[in-house]
């Protein structure tokens, strides 16, 4: 009981100290409110609505545009899955940059949620000899194959297990998301992810206001802050309102497929049924919902 008390007083003192620090640095009540904001999953509907309203105002002040920040929850009976046809991919990286634009990834320092690996055809799928910084005049190059990797949306994700503060979790529709306001930036999830899918804001992220995507989801592409982790969300702001992820839409060769794994009529189920698929690093038992296959 005594310990409890001392912890409370400790916290009181800490919040007091922080409060005065914030007050001294000229920050207003808004900053304090944001600082004391709780984990997204513990908030009530009203609290969430308030936060979203404030964010829209705040973003308008920063970027001079009207924003729509959604907190659209997962649809019932939906589990998203993804399939990528490796025999079609030409390594053009159009998906990479479509993703950057759609999801407001920082341009400087540069963050890419999708990494495309260039591989030697005669080595098969061999990560150790792959190259992410390939830069020929024209793709595809002779003798090379291309292997795009982003979040594999594991059914058994290691990244959410290791998070010390429950700032990242798997949504009912299978998307692993991050609460950017709750992430402390310890990067344990990055150490745990076998796919390099998690990216850290090492510096203050910069997105030019004429390029910013104003259609946002709270758990997805809203602007991030310095010192937090971000990752692919299957374009949560799009797929929860029935659109395809932007990488699927942009792909010039139709290598990318997406759909509801629980719907027997979906394209993704057709692929699982009629093509032989594999998952990356199957031996780690992460059970991705991101499948690779050779369509032709």
């Amino acid at each position, binding site marked *: 009981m005594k310990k409890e008390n001392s*912890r409370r007083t400790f*916290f009181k003192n*800490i*919040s007091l100290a*922080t409060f005065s620090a914030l007050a001294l640095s000229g920050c207003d009540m808004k900053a304090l409110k944001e*600082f004391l904001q*709780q*984990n997204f*999953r*513990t908030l009530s509907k009203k609290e969430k609505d308030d936060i979203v309203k404030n964010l829209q105002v705040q973003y308008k002040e920063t970027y001079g545009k009207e924003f729509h920040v959604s907190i659209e929850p997962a649809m019932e009976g939906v589990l998203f899955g993804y399939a990528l046809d490796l025999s079609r991919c030409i390594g053009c990286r159009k998906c990479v940059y479509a993703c950057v634009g759609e999801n407001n990834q920082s341009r400087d*320092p540069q963050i890419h949620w999708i*990494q495309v*690996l260039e591989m030697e055809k005669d080595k098969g799928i*061999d*990560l*150790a*000899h*792959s*190259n*992410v910084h390939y830069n020929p005049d024209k793709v595809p190059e002779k003798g090379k194959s291309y292997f795009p*990797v982003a979040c594999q949306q594991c059914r058994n994700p*290691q990244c959410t*297990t*290791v*998070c*010390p*503060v*429950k*700032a990242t979790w798997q949504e009912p529709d299978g998307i692993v998301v991050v609460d950017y306001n*709750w*992430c*402390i*930036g*310890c*990067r*344990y999830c*990055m*150490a*745990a*992810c*076998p*796919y*390099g899918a*998690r*990216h*850290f*804001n*090492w*510096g*203050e992220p910069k997105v030019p206001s004429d390029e910013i995507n104003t259609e946002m989801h709270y758990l997805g592409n809203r602007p991030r802050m*310095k*010192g*937090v*982790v971000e990752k692919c969300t299957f374009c949560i702001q799009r797929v929860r309102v029935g659109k395809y992820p932007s990488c699927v839409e942009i792909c010039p060769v139709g290598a990318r497929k997406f759909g509801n794994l629980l719907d027997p009529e979906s394209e993704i189920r057709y692929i699982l049924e009629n093509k032989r698929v594999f998952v990356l690093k199957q031996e*780690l*038992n*992460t059970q991705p919902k991101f499948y690779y296959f050779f369509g032709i």
Partner: protein
Amino acid sequence: MNFIRFITGSIKIILQGSKAYYAWLIFLLLLILWGGFGYFGQLSEGLIKTHMRDSVSWAFYIGNFTFLVGVAAAAILLVIPAYIYDWKPIKEIVIFGELLAVCAVIMSISFIVVDIGNPLRVWHMLPLIGTMNFPMSMLSWDFFVLNIYLLINLFVVTYLLYCIFFKKGYNSSLVLPLVLLSIPMAVSIHTVTAFLYNALPARPFWNSALLAPRFLASAFCSGPAILLILFQILRKTTQFEIKDEAIWKIAELMVYAMFIYLFFTIAELFKEFYSGTEHLLYWKYLLFGIGDNKEIVVYSWSSIIMGFIAFVLFLIPKTRKNFLTLNIGAVLIYASVYVEKGIALIIPGFTPDVLGQIYVYTPSMTEIRTAAMIFSLGFLLFTFLVKVAIAIVFEDYNIEVLNKKKAKLISEIKS
């Protein structure tokens, strides 16, 4: 009232000393300033001032954290041999060991604080107030064991010093169980820290059951090295009495630890190199470099060579019992384990990264300066605590002396 006098008395003790003592303090303060300005740059611009990037997302800071957890653990484990072999000054060994443990834990926690992207959000991790991911996240376990360990040691050492200061006998039914508890706690802090890395299937370099045993063995090399030198200094400058035999015994125990560490490492290397799977890449990067990327090789080999020389110096009885070679060995093994934990443990875990890419990491100036700040703050704290402890334990700094001084002062004023 007594407490205030204790505090003012202690401040006086801290402020008084020889020229060498002041030089040491000034040296530390300069380092703190130099390091502090470096850290300030990181605070304002973010961790981009470090050389960590997405590929190598943990590095020097977390390595320092790991090293210091080892020091904290080993400081207490020395109580076991002190008890078994019946070295006379066991109470003193407990006191100075715990002071070292307290400082090392504080420093290790500081390294976590400078490593995280949003230090102000640390409260998200606290139970009840935040949403701690207990028991799933090993980091939450580390939070508990480190804090409990810190509190136990802080309490015991404060209590012991308090009793000596007030010339009271201490309650051994209170102290003994806590000291006994702190021994398994010491093992657990380093084990949990090893488990932090250990069970990540994404990182084959760490994914070996030998990791925690190797951690403990290496901690038994580096932690006692500090106390070995501290005991000699105390013996020279105070009434602290510790026999040569006891110091040699510490060195002998360190040799066993080094041998066990060597054996574990060779077992690990044999398995990796003979089976020759793709997991060999990380060891190759550490020991020989991959292609032109050899930047880390100098760290790994300097650690190996320093460790090996220390092992030989401690193994041969003649050099073990010569205080010059003994101290050289102690410094070398400390440095060896520091480089091993600071760089050689963490970096190969991330290089090549999970997608096979090589990002060459070496610490940036900001990282070195921040580490220098934490180490000098830690040393400063340790110096102050040891100074007060020496005064209380050996130099008759106690309540009676203070009372006498007060009485004298009053009588002088009266006359």
